[in-house]
């Protein structure tokens, strides 16, 4: 095992052709990831014709690298303009964009890019460690556990809203859960709140809602206020690699958080059915909940950037596991990847371990090396990219609004989403002006769907007795502890409130 491990790394690094392909793959992956609205799934589907005729290992490395670094660049627009490219990037926006507003875009980007890389690499590590115990772990998660995990995530809302806002947070979270019920009822097939609008049958587009609630309100605020995104002038910030480096160093400073969120991310990726956005949001919630000063979140806490980014890259390593060893894809992106593997002559299944162990290790190393290349490259160019936050709003806002509109349209290719974008943008702006938290909304939306569907399945399968499954009891214990902790905290006056009183 050990010799295969290192010989695969050697073979990967010493083949100029494979390394060249990886460089190209990283570039494509980063560009696709930076564009809002188009996901990594499409890029793999489009790349499939090109991997015909490629050697098995090279083709697989090419596609996997492209897919793995996809999440690394999505954060750039989330942090700089408050424009998330996808549901999981939205978690990064909540603290990343306030940092940019404080003139700390460089620090935020430095931290988030490094966090993505670290997450990707730890994800690869989890992948390697999990191989022997893959079966029991994956098979332990059934609809019962999905339901309780979703509920656990929803309870994090209590912390996200921060202190006195707990009721506002609950209202917003419930609003998100109500919107999650739009569409075809997964159980009865009746359409709910969708009427004759076919585009609503599969639910409201998550990307559109996220853009409407986070991106557009910020842009309206910026346009009204004038000036630039960064509220301080460029001279005061002394914009340089130094600030980016400070950001990079934030990750080792919060190493334990980064490690935890990477592992949680990888585990969620490993268990098919929970979906990518859930990983980023659960980890964001975890960062807030485990912080000693949760009131800083939403106002530019660097942990709020690190947690979702580690999670969203770590989940790629995780979701490769069931794909490769069960032949059951862990995400929609991995489903496309599996098709591509078949073309290359790789037959995913338990035989991978016995017949293609070298390939498995090459793929693990490709995750590591690909993430390293992406991080180095992005850190290098960030210095120039971050300067955009100092551009005058009158020049910037129109461009970003167009980008947002394209993102909302392209994601599902339906013009009706533009109407939703405008309508929900008004709601988002009202929430922003009134000081209501917006993060609970996305949590309610993402996890509400999972909770509903898995509750139905679990009840159908086991009735109410699913609550007493061993893993269920553990999760119920965690939920009770979280809620109890939230109540305890809300009774204690927070540091921020004291500050407000004195100022």
């Amino acid at each position, binding site marked *: 095992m050990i010799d295969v491990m290192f010989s695969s790394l050697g073979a990967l690094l010493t083949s100029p052709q494979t390394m060249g392909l990886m460089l190209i793959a990283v570039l494509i992956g980063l560009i696709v990831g930076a564009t809002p609205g188009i996901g990594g799934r499409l890029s793999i589907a489009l790349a499939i014709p090109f991997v015909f005729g490629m050697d098995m290992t090279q083709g697989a490395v090419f596609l996997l690298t492209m897919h793995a670094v996809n999440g690394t660049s999505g954060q750039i627009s989330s942090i700089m303009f408050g424009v998330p490219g996808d549901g999981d990037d939205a978690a990064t926006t909540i603290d990343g964009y306030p940092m940019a507003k404080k003139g700390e875009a460089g620090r935020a980007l430095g931290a988030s890019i490094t966090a993505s890389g670290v997450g990707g690499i730890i994800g690869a590590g989890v992948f390697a460690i999990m191989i022997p115990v893959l079966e029991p772990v994956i098979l332990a998660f059934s609809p019962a556990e999905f339901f309780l995990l979703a509920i656990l995530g929803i309870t994090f809302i209590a912390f996200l809203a921060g202190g006195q806002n707990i009721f506002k947070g609950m209202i917003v979270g419930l609003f998100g859960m109500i919107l999650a019920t739009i569409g075809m009822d997964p159980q009865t097939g009746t359409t709910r709140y969708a009427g004759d609008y076919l585009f609503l049958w599969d639910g409201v587009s998550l990307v559109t809602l996220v853009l409407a609630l986070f991106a557009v309100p910020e842009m309206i605020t910026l346009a009204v206020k004038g000036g630039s995104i960064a509220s301080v002038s460029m001279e005061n910030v002394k914009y340089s690699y130094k600030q980016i480096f400070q950001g990079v160093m934030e990750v080792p400073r919060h190493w334990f958080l980064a490690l935890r969120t990477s592992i949680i991310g990888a585990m969620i990726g490993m268990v098919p059915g929970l979906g990518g956005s859930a990983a980023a949001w659960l980890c964001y919630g975890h960062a807030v909940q485990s912080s000693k000063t949760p009131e800083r979140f939403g106002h530019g806490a660097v942990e709020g950037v690190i947690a979702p980014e580690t999670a969203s890259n770590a989940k790629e390593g995780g979701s490769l596991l069931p794909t490769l060893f069960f032949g059951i894809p862990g995400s929609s992106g991995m489903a496309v990847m599996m098709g591509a593997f078949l073309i290359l002559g790789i037959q995913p299944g338990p035989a991978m371990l016995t017949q293609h162990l070298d390939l498995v290790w090459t793929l693990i190393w490709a995750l590591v090396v690909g993430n390293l290349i992406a991080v180095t490259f992005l850190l290098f160019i960030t210095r120039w990219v971050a300067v955009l936050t100092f551009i005058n709003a009158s020049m910037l806002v129109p461009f970003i609004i167009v980008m947002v509109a394209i993102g909302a349209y392209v994601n599902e290719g*339906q013009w009706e989403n533009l109407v939703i974008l405008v309508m929900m943008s008004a709601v988002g702006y009202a929430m922003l002006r009134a000081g209501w938290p917006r993060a609970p909304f996305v949590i309610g939306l993402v996890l509400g769907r999972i909770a509903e569907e898995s509750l139905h399945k679990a009840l159908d399968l086991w009735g109410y007795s699913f609550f007493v499954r061993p893993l269920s009891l553990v999760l119920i214990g965690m939920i009770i502890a979280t809620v109890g902790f939230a109540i305890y905290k809300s009774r204690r006056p927070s540091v921020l409130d004291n500050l407000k009183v004195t100022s």
Partner: protein
Amino acid sequence: MMSKATLKNAFKLAGAACFVLQATTAFAQQGAEFFKGKTVNYIVATAPGGGYDSYGRLVAEYMQRYLPGSTFVVKNMPGAGHIIGTNAIYASKPDGLTIGTFNTGLIYNQITKESAVKFDLSKMSWIGKAAADPRVIVIAQQSPIKSFEDLMSQKQPQNFAVAGPGSASFVETVMLTNALKMPVKMLSGYNGTDDQLAMRRGEIVGSIASRSSYKAFVENGYGRMIAQIGGAEKDVPQLASMVKDEKALGLIALVQSQGDIARLTAGPPGIPADRMDALIDAYKKAMEDPELQARAEKLGLPVQPAYGESVLKAVTAAINQSDETRAMLSEALKAPKK
């Protein structure tokens, strides 16, 4: 010995045949001229990735090759279980520049006259179908059920996974369960490959699904196929051979007709005949291209094509069901009883 007259007649006949053949190819050629420098939108009524998308992209790429000067652009229009994309194809201008692919299961939705359905499959311009995708009953490895008889003799209802209500998987499972009186309890909401994982976990015993989607699962030793509907494979017994009931056989035949015409390509009603000939011609050449076949094989996508008229006939036959079948279908499409 052949008389002179018969010989002459034979020549005449051959000449006429040649003429007809020439005329049709000339007709198709005339249509092919039209596509020079034009862009053809190939709509895939589902998201990127997955079977429909793979077949769609393959078909589009090779049809472009055999319609010189044309550019095929694949456009994904997912949503509402293929209905959005199919409505879009149906409503597009019948100039031959918009065609696409969608789920054969929409036949069910049309038979039951669903209000969201804005198309009439029997009026569409049928270019061809790429595959047959027979259905199988799959049972998880750990279950003691080894055959269809085993399944029928179960006292307790067995958990079967289906996708969302209204999906082909849902409709077929309800119909067959009711008609065959199978001891099956349906659990819906298992989309994508959720059902395979659930069978690995053991919470789900079986599933009625397309054979191709379970090929790898069975090869990996996670389950077994106990009955098949349609298809040429001989390793699994045909369900029809194990059933006596007339009504049930009728429904099995309906499901089989679904499986026979899988991975369709069609355009809106009223595409001019010469352009249709050119499209069918290009589709046929694409399907016969050994390169396409090799690529499809690697992807695990079976290629068993049929073209134009014959697909239309099969579709029409499937839609024209007796009132009794129609009633059973409507029943199956309704909300499940709790």
